[in-house]
């Protein structure tokens, strides 16, 4: 499948740890879907992998919609909306990991959140009607 210059599409995944493999397969298939090289999409793919793994970890309590990922692709601009009805989680409130904190502990938390918030061009979180809505924006290199 190759998308037109302006396209909207969505995919839905069950909210369970086992869905991580499906989420990864979907995210890593995006360059082909967008008709772009892996190098062009590397920030998008890594950021979405981290965001998806984060959602999969806290959305285990989701019941109705699970995890839904909506894409809006307009030329080089890709907007991704991740929706889940798991417990509330605002990644923008997570404290960035400190390098000093890596030393002497096996619990190295917050790296993934820090990565996807840093790699996206824009990020917005809202909690509406018991759902987490995380919107991420990416600008791909010009084709």
């Amino acid at each position: 499948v190759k998308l037109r210059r302006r396209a909207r599409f969505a995919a839905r995944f069950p909210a369970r740890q086992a869905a991580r493999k499906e989420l990864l397969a979907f995210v890593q298939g995006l360059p082909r879907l967008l008709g772009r090289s892996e190098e062009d999409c590397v920030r998008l793919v890594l950021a979405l992998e981290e965001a998806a793994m984060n959602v999969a970890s806290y959305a285990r309590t989701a019941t109705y919609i699970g995890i839904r990922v909506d894409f809006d692709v307009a030329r080089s601009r890709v907007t991704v909306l991740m929706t889940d009805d798991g417990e509330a989680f605002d990644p923008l409130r997570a404290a960035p990991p400190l390098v000093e904190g890596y030393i002497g502990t096996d619990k190295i938390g917050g790296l993934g959140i820090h990565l996807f918030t840093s790699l996206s061009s824009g990020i917005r979180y809202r909690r509406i009607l018991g759902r987490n809505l995380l919107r991420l924006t990416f600008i791909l290199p010009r084709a």
Partner: protein
Amino acid sequence: LRIVREVLYLPIDKEESMDIRRETRAGGSIVFIGGKLDTLAAAELEKAIAEGMSASSHRVVVDCADLLYICSAGLRVLLLGSRECQKEGGFLRLSAVSKFILEVFSITGFDKLFRVYENPERALEAE
């Protein structure tokens, strides 16, 4: 409201994302990784590093020449591997890291924890 025009059913079979191989040299082990070091592949790297530690007295170089990206789980594996090697008097060094992965290191502060070498031979020879 957003209008979803195309809802795709996507295949869920995930291809192997990372290539990994290990070589034992005189000064230590070299773990060559390529492709995508994603969440599911991180365990493979952990295993390869552990094998390298056993084979070469905790002197390990991870060569990233063909690596497209590294996720947070992969970063954790590198950090814990490095800590383990240092504890045993060895090292875990990195070589041939791409510009994008250097950016990931910079974002996460890993650039302050790892010295990056031009190639695995240089990493093994370094003092």
